[in-house]
């Protein structure tokens, strides 16, 4: 046991040296951080190192396990949040972004990236095989859907959840009546028996029978075709004008989504970055009394974007429940979802084909009726 302390108090000199070492580290680290964070990177071309300003890509997805590719290269370790990816160190220029996953449709977009800036985009990937939740007239006591043999045709082309059982008899005494089914029959019945607008399609195709109606859309009483009421959600209006569908930003222009805007530039750069169609829209606006809005010298915003209807008759339209960047369209050959963002092109994916589906959106859910079966259409893959 020592009788005297050997370890002395930390000396002032030693503390001072340590302190100034840390100050030195601070003086070195801070400029590096200030250089790095706005996007400057050192680029090596051969043996030559150059300082290059870079940009970034921010990709939102509605799927947690998506594969992202930029310019045919897989993107790794870019996840920022659960379903958002921030890709750093992107050189200025056009970049092809692909979001894909087994079982999902592929989303592709050409994105312009500018130095110091991050290009934001939202990808969506609908299931290849339609995912549905059956809503049958009867259920077992434990809640399992009971399906009749006449409904099998539809089930062959879709995935369902939860599991169902086949009915072997017409006896229903041991089964429980499904209240959701009753609600849906009422909703769909009113759509087929009603006398108002739903019977009229966007483009005149008189031989087609009436098939649907939207149950919960907020019509604002606008001036579009009376057969398809305008739909307003989150400061956006979905409307029909001159036989086409448009999404219009009606909120505060300072909060307009980025895909309504483009960088100011020459005709060739605008076409290269956003496509001929965007250039045409902006050019057309200059000829009107409401030219493009320019929040600053570098940006032009058009308040209206047309939605690609695939040259088909549109029977219904709405925003996808819970989303204001996607619209759902009931077309001749099925239910489609289209993004509003039309930079380079608009991605449109089929949600459900079927035979002659009808559609009701109620309480944030998309219900369909086809081939004698009621079901809910799901946007994501069913996981067990």
């Amino acid at each position: 046991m020592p009788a005297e302390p050997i370890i002395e108090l930390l000396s002032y000199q030693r503390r001072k040296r340590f302190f100034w070492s840390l100050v030195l580290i601070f003086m070195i680290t801070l400029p590096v951080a200030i250089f790095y964070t706005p996007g400057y990177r050192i680029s090596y071309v051969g043996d030559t190192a150059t300082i290059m300003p870079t940009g970034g890509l921010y990709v939102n997805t509605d799927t947690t396990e998506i594969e992202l590719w930029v310019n045919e290269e897989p993107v790794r370790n870019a996840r920022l949040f659960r379903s958002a990816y921030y890709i750093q160190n992107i050189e200025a220029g056009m970049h092809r972004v692909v979001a894909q996953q087994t079982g999902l449709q592929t989303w592709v977009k050409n994105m312009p990236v500018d130095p110091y800036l991050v290009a934001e985009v939202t990808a969506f990937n609908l299931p290849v095989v339609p995912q549905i939740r059956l809503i049958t007239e009867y259920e077992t006591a434990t809640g399992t859907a009971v399906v009749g043999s006449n409904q099998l045709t539809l089930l062959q082309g879709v995935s369902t959840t939860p599991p169902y059982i086949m009915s072997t008899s017409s006896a229903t005494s041991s089964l429980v009546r499904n209240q959701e089914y009753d609600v849906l029959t009422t909703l769909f019945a009113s759509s087929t028996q009603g006398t108002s607008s739903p019977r009229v399609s966007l483009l005149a195709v008189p031989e087609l029978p009436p098939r649907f109606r939207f149950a919960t859309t907020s019509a604002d009483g606008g001036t579009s075709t009376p057969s398809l009421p305008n739909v307003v959600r989150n400061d956006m209006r979905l409307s029909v004008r001159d036989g086409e569908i448009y999404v219009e930003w009606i909120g505060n222009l300072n909060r307009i989504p980025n895909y309504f805007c483009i960088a100011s530039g020459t005709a060739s750069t605008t076409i290269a970055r956003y496509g001929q169609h965007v250039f045409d829209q902006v050019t057309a606006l200059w000829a009107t009394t409401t030219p493009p809005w320019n929040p600053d010298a570098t940006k032009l915003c058009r308040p209206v974007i047309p939605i690609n209807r695939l040259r088909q008759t549109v029977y219904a339209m709405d925003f996808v429940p819970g989303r204001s960047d996607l619209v759902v369209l009931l077309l001749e050959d099925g239910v489609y979802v289209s993004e509003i963002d039309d930079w380079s092109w608009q991605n449109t994916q089929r949600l459900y084909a079927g035979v002659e589906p009808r559609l009701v959106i109620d309480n944030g859910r998309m219900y369909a009726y086809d081939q004698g079966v009621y079901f809910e259409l799901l946007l994501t893959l069913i996981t067990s």
Partner: protein
Amino acid sequence: MAEKSTTSRLPYAERPDFKVARAYELTGTDRRLYRTLEILPGLVAWITLIGVVLASMYASFFAAYFIIAFSIYWVLKTIFLSYHVRYNWRRLKHHLAIDWQQSIAQFPHDQIHHLVILPFYKEPDEVLEGALKGLADTRYDKQKLIVVLAAEERAGSEAVALGRRMVSTWSDTFGKILLTVHPDGLPGEIPGKGSNTHFALTQVLHSVIDPQQIPYRDILVSIFDVDTVVYPDYFNCLLWHFFKAKNPYKSAFQPVPLFTNNLWEAPALSRVMAMSSTFWQMIMQERPDRAATFSSHSVSFQALYEIGFGQANVVSEDSRIFWNLMIANDGNFDTVSMSYPIAMDATVAPTVWGTIKNIYRQHRRWAYGTENWPYIIYHFIKNKRIPLRKRLVVGALQGEGYWSLVTNPIMLFILGWAPIYLGTQEFHTTVLSYELPIIVRNLLVIAMAGLVVSSVISLSLTPPRPEGHSRFKYVVMALQWIMVPLTMIVFSAIPGLDAQTRLMFGRYLGFWVTPKRVK
């Protein structure tokens, strides 16, 4: 009596404003000056926090770069402080292994008496028992110990009765043990440990020291919180440092408070706060030039006598006594680090919510040490005999300490993200806006690596596991440090801001007695 006759009050301590506690006790220009100084810490803290918010909204790029710089500063500060903790931990372990009894044999110390003041309020019997047993178990001549149980009249007859019982039980153990009862409502006082201690010192002076003609120079006073349990060699270690000190009568001796008496019974939150306080004191042990006295500490009776036994009208009496001594001695007064532990209680209550409230109140009381800053600056302006450099350095360091206590955690863990949420549209589309949370997060992760050091050191300072406690608790004790970002905000920054805001608006805090152990 020869020694006593040479001892008198220091000239500066005779000033009528020497023991000022609040602005309203002064008049005219002095009052306005003191009030301005009371307002400044809270005002600067609020300006900082609001400034970061406004900068995030209207100067997002500047705010982002400022936050990046601040995060780097924080990492380096963490490294700097961790280095001090680790060094002091080594020294503490080393000091625990030294045979201090043997080491003081070289000094003639038979004439030295230890006066131990134990102010108490309504603490349970076991707390007083623990403190007295600790004193009795020291490896020191107990006949040299004068123990004062300082009761409060306002605590009622039970507290006085408890004091009497203790005096009766322990009277044969110590050279002297006596009970003082601090009257309620004495003019010019605020109820609390400071006024009680002040009264006890006066009483023991008249009833023991002067009658027994003990020279003031030969008395070392240890003012302990009542839950203080000294380690066996405390008085030997104290004496060694006293004799080795460059200027022993111009020094206060600071042990390291380990809040370990009830550590195994305390909830994780309480343990983290207790150990965090210990770590802060360990850092201060290696930076005595920045340290003031805290909680339980020791100082010569002569030094205390020369300033009239400190102040009876402040909340943060433990640190104020150091500033009294330093200012009255014209800056010639220091803190000596003992790097030797004393054991104290972690804050607990019967319920988790009660514990949270108690920890908050205790830390608000500690943070109310901000009231020392106007006092220091006021007297630094008045006492020109203190070297100017010392006045500037100490004033700035203390000010920075109070400012960083309340602003740094909030800026780091909350406002660090402000430009992302409050920034301009132009800022939101930049690489900088996306890189900001990433770089701040990464820097914080690096800073959090310091918690591993904290975890290891805290486990090494934890007392042996008592029966009835699972080994699994060691794992919890190791992992409890992940709560630090939360505790820094909830139990350091917010109570600190609370305290500074009260001082700023002149809504002065009273002394809040931290409950000791669950009855």
